[in-house]
């Protein structure tokens, strides 16, 4: 009901804007509202009269709710900070897709109708694959803040993301681990009935070949498996320098626990599924020595990150995670893009987002590459004393 009322309110607002928009405004975007979305000045001095409407589609309930909640906090913190700077104001509307791609499609439709300047989200890659084409067709820019699957930005030239893909993180992880531990032969284990872990496996296999590390055995399992003892015994037989595992956190915890219990003490290198505080909470001591690549280094001492950590702690009384950091960075990047041309119509934002280069952010020096994917240093972490620390 809330959604419906919201639509009605937004639709009537659009009518008012439409009526008040005289033909002489001549904005570059050509849409009804965009005339008022062009301002004067550049960068910090940019001033735009109208509020810039931004829609965000997050999974606030359902299976991915824990991620969506972090993202909401990150976005709201960024919005609060942006509201304090002069010149450009944002009207951020966050809606819940209930972890359902169909609901994401509906919300994308709604935001396109409302003619928002940009859509942030959706939380999950599989929702992005289905909902992003709607924005692409309408020429509304989208900024993904957590989509890591391959192919999302191939949907079209209005689709961007600030979240590093597995394909970007895994080679850096493997390279760092190879150097650190002098890997020569490893055993690779992955669940072969899940698209995400399978594509993680492919990235691992390619990266290991690149580094000249031999894979002595490849062992598959199912994402619902919880007893890995037989598989681990098999892995142990080839005496590997490390276990390389592409699995979701549900399988990662028992796998890591059982490996240590069986006396396998070699490093365990995991994909993004391992990048979860639940690993240390649930596997406890067994998680020590697990190596995971990540897009965000919580302990990074760059000034943006330090300010973010302090502000987040103050507002929510909790530590942010990678999802909050990427969401926070996302809205800041949008602000940067809007101010670059001092315009918030679709074409200006699309063009400016594509030209972001070496922006200092919470995630490090950030650029958008030619495929509209994120480019910034990944951090390779290792679990030490119960928390992720940077693998030096």
């Amino acid at each position, binding site marked *: 009901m809330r959604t419906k009322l919201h639509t009605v309110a937004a639709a009537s607002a659009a009518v008012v804007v439409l009526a008040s928009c005289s033909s002489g405004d001549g904005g570059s975007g050509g849409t009804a509202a965009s005339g008022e979305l062009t301002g004067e000045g550049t960068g910090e001095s940019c001033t735009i009269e109208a509020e810039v409407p931004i829609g965000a589609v997050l999974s606030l309930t359902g299976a991915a709710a824990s991620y969506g909640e972090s993202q909401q906090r990150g976005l709201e913190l960024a919005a609060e900070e942006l509201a304090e700077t002069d010149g450009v104001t944002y009207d951020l509307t966050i809606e819940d897709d209930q972890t359902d791609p169909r609901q994401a499609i509906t919300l994308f439709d709604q935001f396109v109708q409302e003619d928002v300047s940009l859509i942030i989200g959706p939380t999950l890659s599989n929702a992005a694959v289905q909902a992003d084409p709607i924005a692409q067709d309408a020429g509304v820019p989208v900024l993904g803040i957590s989509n890591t699957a391959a192919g999302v930005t191939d949907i079209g030239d209005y689709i961007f993301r600030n979240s590093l893909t597995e394909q970007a993180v895994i080679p850096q992880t493997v390279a760092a681990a190879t150097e650190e531990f002098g890997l020569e032969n490893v055993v690779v284990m992955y669940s072969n009935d899940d698209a995400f872990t399978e594509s993680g496996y492919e990235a691992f296999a390619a990266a290991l070949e690149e580094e000249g590390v031999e894979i002595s055995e490849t062992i598959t399992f199912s994402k619902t498996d919880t*007893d890995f003892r*037989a598989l681990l015994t098999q892995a142990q037989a080839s005496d590997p320098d490390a276990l390389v595992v592409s699995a979701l956190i549900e399988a990662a915890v028992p796998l890591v626990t059982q490996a240590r219990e*069986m006396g396998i003490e070699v490093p365990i290198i995991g994909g993004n599924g391992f990048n979860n505080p639940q690993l240390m909470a*649930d596997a406890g001591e067994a998680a020590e020595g697990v190596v995971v690549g990540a897009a965000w280094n919580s302990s990074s001492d760059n000034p943006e990150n330090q300010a973010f950590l302090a502000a987040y702690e103050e507002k929510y009384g909790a530590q942010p995670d990678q999802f909050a950091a990427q969401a926070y960075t996302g809205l800041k990047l949008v602000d940067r893009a809007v101010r670059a041309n001092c315009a918030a119509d679709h074409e200006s934002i699309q063009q400016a987002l594509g030209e972001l280069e070496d922006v200092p952010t919470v995630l490090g020096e950030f650029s958008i590459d030619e495929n509209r994917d994120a480019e910034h240093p990944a951090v390779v972490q290792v679990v030490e004393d119960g928390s992720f620390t940077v693998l030096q």
Partner: protein
Amino acid sequence: MQQLLNGIFIGSIYALFAIGFTLVFGILDRLNLAHPAVFAASAFVGIELVERVGLSLWAALPIVFVVGALLGLVIERVAFRPLKGRADAHFAGLISSIALAGMLIAVLQWRYGPDTRRFPPGSFPDTRYEVAGAQVTLVQLVILAISLALMVGLTYMVTRTRLGRGMRAVAENPTAARVLGVNVDRITAVTFAISSALGAVAGVLFAINVNTAQLGMGSAIELKGLAVIIVGGMGSLPGALIGGLVLGLAEVFAVQYIGSSWRDVIAFGLLFIILLLRPQGLLGARKVREV
């Protein structure tokens, strides 16, 4: 050696799950597909008792046992009893128990969310033994011991006690049993209660053994449990234990000698072969159905 032990311990988990399953099936001729949901629910209840209430695992287990028994009574009352007079009671009960399982899982998800949980570290002694160069944990030994004890205890109960005689009478012919003064409804309810209580204990031990509990943990081994009761001989308690071990060993040796992707192909292929050679299962008696 390690793989042999792995096989035995995986097998004893299957057996533990299947013993309760097969009890209802053997005596009442009903397939209770809410059993996997009880398995998951009990693990979550057990974790709640240890984590929130602060009970020790040993204090929590009897409570979980009772909760499991109560769930069994509910399952019998809601999913099976209303349908017992119908001509298609087997099939209708099967479906309604699936429906009840779905509701139970939905309630669990509402209460606990989708995340996996586990028993707090140290709730079970982390003792390990080395047997001929292979690692064995105390949990695994306890699971094996409990499976064996349950098999022996239940077999004794079914063959020697008054309750067991009633169960067998009901298994043979419910109508005749009723005529002879056996309280069929009571026997049925008690059978469900015992079955679910065993499933509940199995769920807790399973969650400790693999250090994780999730909503789908029951359905992940449901099919294996069904295979075990069929391989073992439907309704045969020693058969459930032997069937579990056969399946566990088959899986482990498939991993060892053929490849991990072929695990289920080999395990279930074995099921087909056993059924071809012994349609009644390893320890099952040939059933003669009157038409």
